[in-house]
């Protein structure tokens, strides 16, 4: 059950929300794409509904709102450490169904995989999620194959159509903002796609024996190890640690955690110089098997949500979707 309000009313509500929430949504950053005169769509703070990119899938996922690219864990002086504060306001995140499914995987890793992560949890607890529907399939997405094309686990659903805004609100806190406005009750069902151009079948019989498959080297030999596939992925959660000693006073500094990529040099390098996965083929195998095999073995469902961002961003035109589909075909 939902209702409709006028666009004006929705704008008023949005302004009100801004008093209590930091709102993050996909935005077009004009001219900030990889190549000249190209844009990038990534998450940023928004103040109005117009700033939001509603249609196109963001190039980078929502994960950076909950997991900053660089996050200072603590500052240290000689004898003391200080944990940075994380802001007063609550957080509202606009996202699409695939990313809402990805949220579950982030929760799994950071909250249900051993000790809870303090930094993730403190942001997660004050975050609410606004679903944006999909009117048509995005490039390379295969959400229908992964069963992530629909989601009911939203706090709020918003759809803009001209001068009216359709709303379905499940969160009482958010509901309170809309109650001040006159709304017309009606059925509101989030838009979703039922079919993608890409259809992917997951292989069912992967095992450690799959390590010997030639496909890893086939793809690995094409990979340049830039890590874009990891950085755009809504479910990649790896980070590395950096201790920074301030240049002017080496007794003071900070410890940061920073996004890491299993495809980039250094990821498996340990003290003494041993590097476990040296070739891009081995790294490709690790990534793919983690997405659709290791994670599932441990938690009962695959990690990948089929958003297709990794395929779209790869400068070498490596299609992860095509790779896993080939693995499935090899089994048939």
């Amino acid at each position, binding site marked *: 059950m939902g209702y409709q309000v006028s666009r004006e009313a929705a704008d008023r509500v949005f302004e009100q929300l801004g008093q209590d929430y930091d709102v993050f949504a996909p935005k077009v950053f004009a001219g900030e794409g990889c*190549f000249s005169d190209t844009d990038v769509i990534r998450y940023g703070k928004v103040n109005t509904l117009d700033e939001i990119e509603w249609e196109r899938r963001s190039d980078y996922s929502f994960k950076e709102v909950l997991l900053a690219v660089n996050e200072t864990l603590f500052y240290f002086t000689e004898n003391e450490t200080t944990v940075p504060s994380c802001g007063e306001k609550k957080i509202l995140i606009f996202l699409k169904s695939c990313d809402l499914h990805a949220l579950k995987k982030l929760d799994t890793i950071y909250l249900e995989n051993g000790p809870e992560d303090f930094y993730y949890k403190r942001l997660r607890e004050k975050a609410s999620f606004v679903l944006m529907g999909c009117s048509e399939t995005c490039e390379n997405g295969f959400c229908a194959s992964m069963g992530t094309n629909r989601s009911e686990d939203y706090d709020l659903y918003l759809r803009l159509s001209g001068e009216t805004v359709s709303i379905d609100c499940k969160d009482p806190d958010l509901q309170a903002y809309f109650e001040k406005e006159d709304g017309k009750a009606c059925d509101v069902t989030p838009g979703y796609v039922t079919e993608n151009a890409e259809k992917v079948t997951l292989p069912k019989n992967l095992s450690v024996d799959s390590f010997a498959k030639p496909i890893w080297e086939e793809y690995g030999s094409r990979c340049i190890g830039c890590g874009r596939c990891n950085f755009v992925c809504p479910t990649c959660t790896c980070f590395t640690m950096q201790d920074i000693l301030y240049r002017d006073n080496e007794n003071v500094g900070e410890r940061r955690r920073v996004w890491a990529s299993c495809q980039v040099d250094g990821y498996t390098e340990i003290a003494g110089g041993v590097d476990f996965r040296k070739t891009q083929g081995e790294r490709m195998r690790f990534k793919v098997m983690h997405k659709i095999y290791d994670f599932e073995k441990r938690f009962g469902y695959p990690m990948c949500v089929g958003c297709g961002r990794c395929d779209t961003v790869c400068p070498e035109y490596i299609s992860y979707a095509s790779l896993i589909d080939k693995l499935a075909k090899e089994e048939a």
Partner: protein
Amino acid sequence: MGLDINTKKAKKNAFRIGKVRGEGASRIRVPGGYLKAEILGLVQEIAEKYGNGIVHLTTRQGFEIEGIRLEDMDAINEMLQPIIELLDINQENRGTGYPASGTRNVCACIGNNVCPFANYDTSQFAKRIEKEIFPNDLHFKIALTGCPNDCGKVRLHDFGIIGMTMPQYDPSRCVSCKACIKGCKSLSVDALRMENYKIIRDEEKCIGCGVCVTKCPTRAFTRSKKKYYKLTLMGRTGKRNPRLGEDFLLWTDEDTIVKIILNTYRFVKEYIDPKAPGGKEHIGYIIDRVGFAEYKKWALEGVGLLPETKMKECVYWNGVHFDR
């Protein structure tokens, strides 16, 4: 009756007088080398009707229709009209072909319509310059290239325009992957290093090529909103002293470049050797004669440089001397 043709006029009208008596070629300028495919069909028609069916792709990105009869020049000019209009070439009288040929076609590499390295739309800037300077009988050669790779070989021209971008670095998006450092070292000038896991850019060394931006996997490096250019001066080929153009302005903008080019026309009018054969003297030789300081005075007349622009106070050229 023998053929009675004013060859000076014909040359100015963009016809070449060939080595075969009575024959020549029709030269079509294509600013920025950027054209709709339908023009190819029009060129073909002329070549098959009035030429020998052969078209030469010129070194300045134009067409040269070979084997035309010189008595057909007027008829060819009529057929050139739709090409001239499609390419938006400045013209005084319709149907009379090109009003000048001294100022040569403005060349450009493919630019950022296609190339991932290019820092701007080279063809559009080429067309803007063409609109400003053509027609003119003075011998000017201008070329544009998208990035310091200089695929456009612009340093062989009087004016070389090289695309630059001022890298914008957001340390909060940087994951210390070193893709920019490796890219800058292997493909460019090794202007980046890492300190405390973040990138330090040597601003003196950086040539604004944009490799760091294309290599960055997280959008920590992005391009400046403003497009920047390097302007190189007075490169040339030729018999006496071929040489590469030298840097004059770094981190300059489009408007400045256009103004300097227009100022240079005034400079040349003032100082060109009145006895120069065919009224044609390379600008570089004029500058060699009157001195760079005098040229600079004329070139910068009414020009306000951007605060970030770096100007070479004096420019020295080398090259090969066959004239000493």
